């Protein structure tokens, strides 16, 4: 019996390892930015071209949502954001990434504008500092401007409800 026990145990271990590996999403890359301050930036707001900096994020927790008019997947999550903003569940700052002003404004006019303001980042400089690689991306930034959470790809209603909103609620309770 012992003769066969070892190979069988080995086989089961390998199968278990592979099974766990299959359930993991290879696109989920842990962000090195979690727990770090939002990178410093000085850009303009899409709406009125006034300057906006990282200091804008002080005071209360917010979502930072990376979007673009050319981003097809952004349309998937957009109604969710519009709805969350309308119900005042969350304050969302947009990061309009590698877009042009006309297209971006037209896109918001067409699909609704859930953003308290949108940072206009046509060259993707802030996007680069945030390690953006799969638009849309969503960050939770706390009241001290620290990045606490990152989601790559479109937000689902489940993720919003199960992860983002509870995190925001606990951040609001923090001193």
């Amino acid at each position, binding site marked *: 019996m012992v003769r066969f026990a070892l190979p069988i145990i080995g086989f089961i271990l390998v199968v278990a390892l592979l099974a766990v590996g299959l359930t993991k999403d290879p696109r989920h890359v*842990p*962000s*090195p930015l979690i727990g770090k301050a939002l990178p410093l930036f000085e850009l303009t707001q899409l709406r009125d071209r006034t300057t906006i900096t990282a200091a804008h994020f002080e005071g209360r927790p917010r979502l930072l949502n990376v979007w673009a008019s050319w981003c097809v997947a952004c349309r998937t999550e957009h109604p969710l954001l519009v709805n969350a903003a309308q119900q005042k569940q969350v304050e969302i700052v947009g990061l309009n990434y590698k877009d042009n002003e006309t297209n971006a404004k037209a896109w918001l006019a067409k699909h609704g504008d859930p953003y308290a303001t949108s940072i206009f980042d046509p060259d993707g400089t802030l996007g680069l500092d*945030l*390690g953006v690689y*799969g638009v849309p991306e969503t960050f939770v930034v706390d009241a001290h401007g620290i990045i606490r959470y990152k989601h790559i790809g479109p937000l689902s209603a489940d993720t919003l409800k199960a992860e983002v909103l509870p995190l925001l609620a606990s951040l609001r309770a923090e001193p």
Partner: protein
Amino acid sequence: MLVPLAVGAADIPLAFESEALERRYEVLIEELRCLVCQNQSLADSSADLAQDMRELVHRMLVEGRSDDEVRQFLVDRYGDFVLYDPPLKVSTIALWSAPAIMLLLAILVVARVARSSNKRPPTLNDEEQRILARLRAERD
């Protein structure tokens, strides 16, 4: 698939002031991973992001930054994942030690098999020796 491949890495020729710099650039983009198409290096990928990242590497090298500074800059933003050769730390211990553990296990198994097949035939006691002698006598 043919079209994106054809307009891949050589899309926009980047200028270098020296051949040495260009060689460093080529080595770097081989060892940096494109995050959009995760199984390709920056050198292989035709994704927009890879194009941007190649231009960034080029710009940093032309500005006189070292290879390590370029690597660190990208790791700070995208994480160790951007390196095809991840550094040794707590989260990567399993990754780095796996080959050694596998080799050790293989050696153990081989040693066991070799030892069991190497066993000498058992010696016979007096009783058995007598039976053997009798059987031989009967055969003859």
